[in-house]
């Protein structure tokens, strides 16, 4: 009697034999992600010298290492913000059905499939000192000397926008299509103009989605590596944190320091995400439909 009721009570909370199906995935995650993660964290506390916190002390006292945090944030925060902000008006225009919508979506999304290296190569060809962009600018005499857009901050920034925008756009578009279109129509019949409809109805309902999108594109941009090396200035203005980690691990063979850099990277990301999601929790995050449908 009591055994039966225990099994029933467990089943009611979703605990039954079907749960075993989760096992393979759980083992996979455990061995390939969680274990290496803790191994790395452990490693960061075992440097060759300076006690358990030696690697961290080295990171934060060496300006060449410490400043990579700011360099990376300076690139990734504006890039993520621009990606989200630029996605909103375009997604708003792309919401309805129109001829050629699929083509436009495809063109907007293609950079995802290209990969960062190909994008970097394209940028070098297009924006380099003898690229089309500068040749056109010079031939119509807007500038006399080529504008420097590669091998510096702007090259990496543009690369982050090109590869990050499609993600942001697709996410924003799907959040936007989740908002009941009759809400805006209702607002229109109540006298709200186009801008007020956006500000008072669409934006508040979209804002939580924008916060999530920002977090995801930020994480993508924060771990930038290939474009920082290829179109950036990897020893100067675009020496991002992942380059520091790479240097520590494969140039200096200091695994403790490399792990410490990785942990710092994770903590910085967590702080930014926690801040954004903390702000998000102040927003309305419930249903985005206007009633029973």
């Amino acid at each position, binding site marked *: 009697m009591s055994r039966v009721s225990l099994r029933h009570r467990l089943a009611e909370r979703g605990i039954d034999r079907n749960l075993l199906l989760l096992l393979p995935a759980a083992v996979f995650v455990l061995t390939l992600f969680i274990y290496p993660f803790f191994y790395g964290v452990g490693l960061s506390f075992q440097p060759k010298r300076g006690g358990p916190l030696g690697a961290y002390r080295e990171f934060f006292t060496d300006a060449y290492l410490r400043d990579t945090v700011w360099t990376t944030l300076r690139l990734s925060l504006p890039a993520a913000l621009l990606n989200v902000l630029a996605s909103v008006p375009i997604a708003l225009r792309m919401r309805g059905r129109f001829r050629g919508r699929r083509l436009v979506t495809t063109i907007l999304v293609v950079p995802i499939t290209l990969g960062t290296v190909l994008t970097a190569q394209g940028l070098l060809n297009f924006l380099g000192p003898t690229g089309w962009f500068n040749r056109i600018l010079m031939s119509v005499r807007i500038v006399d000397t080529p504008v420097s857009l590669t091998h510096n901050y702007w090259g990496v920034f543009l690369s982050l926008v090109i590869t990050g925008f499609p993600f942001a756009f697709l996410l924003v578009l799907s959040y936007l299509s989740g908002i*009941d279109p*009759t*809400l805006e*129509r*209702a*607002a*229109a*019949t*109540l*006298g*709200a*103009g186009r801008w*007020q409809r956006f500000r*008072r*109805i669409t934006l*508040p*309902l979209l804002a939580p989605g924008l916060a999530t999108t920002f977090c995801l594109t930020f994480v993508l941009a924060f771990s930038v590596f290939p474009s920082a090396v290829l179109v950036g200035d990897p020893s100067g203005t675009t020496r991002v944190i992942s380059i520091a980690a790479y240097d520590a691990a494969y140039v200096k063979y200091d695994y403790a320091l490399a792990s410490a850099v990785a942990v710092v990277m994770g903590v910085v990301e967590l702080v930014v995400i926690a801040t954004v999601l903390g702000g998000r929790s102040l927003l*309305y995050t*419930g*249903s*985005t*439909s*206007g*009633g*029973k*449908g």
Partner: protein
Amino acid sequence: MTASFEELRLEGVSRSFSGNAALADLDLTIRRGEFIALLGPSGCGKSTALNCLAGLLPLTGGRIWCDDTRLDTLPPEKRGFGMVFQNYALFPHLSVWRNIAFGLQMRRLPRAEIRKRVDDAVHLVRLKEHVAKLPGQLSGGQQQRVAIARAVVLEPSLVLMDEPLSNLDAKLRLEMRTEIRRLHQTLGLTTVYVTHDQEEALSLADRLVVLRDGKVQQIGPPEEVHTRPVNKYVADFMGYRNLVLMQASTVEGGRVTVTGHGLTLVGTPVGDIEPGDAVVVGVRPEDLRIGDVVEDGPAAVVEVVEYQGREVAVEARTASGIELHLRTDRRPAPGDRIGIAVDPRRLLVFPAGPDS
């Protein structure tokens, strides 16, 4: 903004979607204070007509006049009409109070006036204890009342309602129907109401507009549409469940004798009918009476009996195989042979042509 009008005229209002006419040449004059119901089966163009009036759909033909002001070129936010949507379209992130206040805030009215008018509207729809809640925390009927309050708080010159009761259960639907009627009587707001429910339209409206395939079939007061439908489609829609294809044999003095399926009946012609014409005979279930079985008289065998409270609905079949629906307070048993009687005034005879 339209303050108020004497007459709202729709002249040849048309709307087509990629070449298919969803609404064709709607002519209608709405007088101030009137309650108009647009009635028809789904896909008849009634919601299209409403959206055209609201400004949510641009017209592809025709004009809308508000007294002497042309209206169809204005965007929805400039028309000053209130609209109640089928799914209510309440703003999910705003409280009941803020939902109702939205339109007033858009008009930049003084804060004190907004507060007073919203409070009045809340009182009118009896939602006082729910003002601070979000729409998601309300029941369907309460959401409906918020939607109505939000539309009427602006005292719009015209209220548009798009099947507002179709998402409610039967009991609540009756209650809200009375509520809408009561509101119309108290506030006297001109209303255009879209529905596919003939009973709803009959009970609420001062005038009905019956639509089919985007075309107006009949415009008239409820009694007229109910008792004198102009063609077989309107009859079908207004509850003439028995529609039988027959032939006119003699026409005289406002009476027509029809024959077919082994039956001979006398009815009232609607439209031009000549002897020999193919006709459709329409009669309501409640106008068919069970009589005695007489020699050569119409008779049928009872097949299904459904108890429906005060009356029973009977499905019977004649010897020639026609199914008849009738309602009676007697209680025949399946298999009984019954005679059929009908008042010639209640038996309408329509031309059988494809359209009329």
